């Protein structure tokens, strides 16, 4: 029962904030809704017993990446509002219709290929050592991908600096 309430409440918040992210005119407000969206997603992770990931979500996404967005918005937003220029060949309506169709299809697949309900007893078993288990999987089973990901981040860091610097 509690799980259902939490799920539906968080779902409404997540989707609501997501809609606000893409529909708000003011980019800074948009970024704020994105933060709220991420925080709600983090809460959802907690209900799924993935508290380590929830914290990482807040730390990396809300505390790091979105701050970066905010910075860029503040740097870029100083002059004139974007979206003044419109491409006449764009067909927004078709986009919405197609998106709606895809959503319907996905929902249909999800509903028909019904999986067994979430085992509730398992939550406790994950909870005890979530950090340890994730850490173990990350550093033992997925060591190579982990290192590759760290290289990716390094490359991205250097790339971002090269791109954003005025003169080298």
């Amino acid at each position, binding site marked *: 029962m509690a799980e259902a309430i939490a799920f539906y409440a968080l779902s409404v918040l997540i989707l609501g904030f997501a809609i606000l992210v*893409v529909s708000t005119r003011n980019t800074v407000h948009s970024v704020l809704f994105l933060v709220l969206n991420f925080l709600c997603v983090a809460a959802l992770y907690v209900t799924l017993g993935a508290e380590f990931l929830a914290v990482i979500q807040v730390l990396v*996404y809300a505390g790091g*990446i979105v701050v970066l967005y905010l910075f860029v918005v503040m*740097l*870029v937003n100083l002059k004139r509002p974007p979206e003044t220029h419109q491409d006449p060949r764009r067909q927004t309506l078709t986009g919405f219709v197609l998106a709606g169709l895809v959503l319907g299809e996905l929902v249909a697949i999800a509903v028909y290929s019904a999986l067994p309900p979430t085992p509730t007893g398992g939550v406790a078993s994950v909870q005890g050592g979530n950090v340890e288990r994730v850490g173990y999987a990350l550093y033992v089973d997925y060591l190579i991908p982990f290192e590759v990901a760290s290289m990716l981040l390094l490359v991205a860091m250097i*790339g971002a600096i090269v791109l954003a610097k005025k003169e080298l």
Partner: protein
Amino acid sequence: MITPAHYIVLSAALFIIGVIGVMVRRNIIIIFMSIELILNAVNINLIAFSHQWQNVIGQVFAIFVIAVAAAEAAVGLGIILAFYRNKETVNIDEMNLLKW
């Protein structure tokens, strides 16, 4: 009772909202944020299945997704800044230098 299907539907809806954001908005920063929404939709799926099978692999994948998202944000925003400095716009319709 909350089944994984519920999570999949939530994730699909979030995914579609992100896709609509990418297709409808012309502000490249909003488009980037929509992509973040899409990645989050994927993560919700991964975590839900991880919960379903009592297996942390889904969470590990979600961590990789977050790492990729961080890299994407850093480089993407760097490109936006570099572009903005040259053309003073963040409208994606005006970013057509490579178009022939």
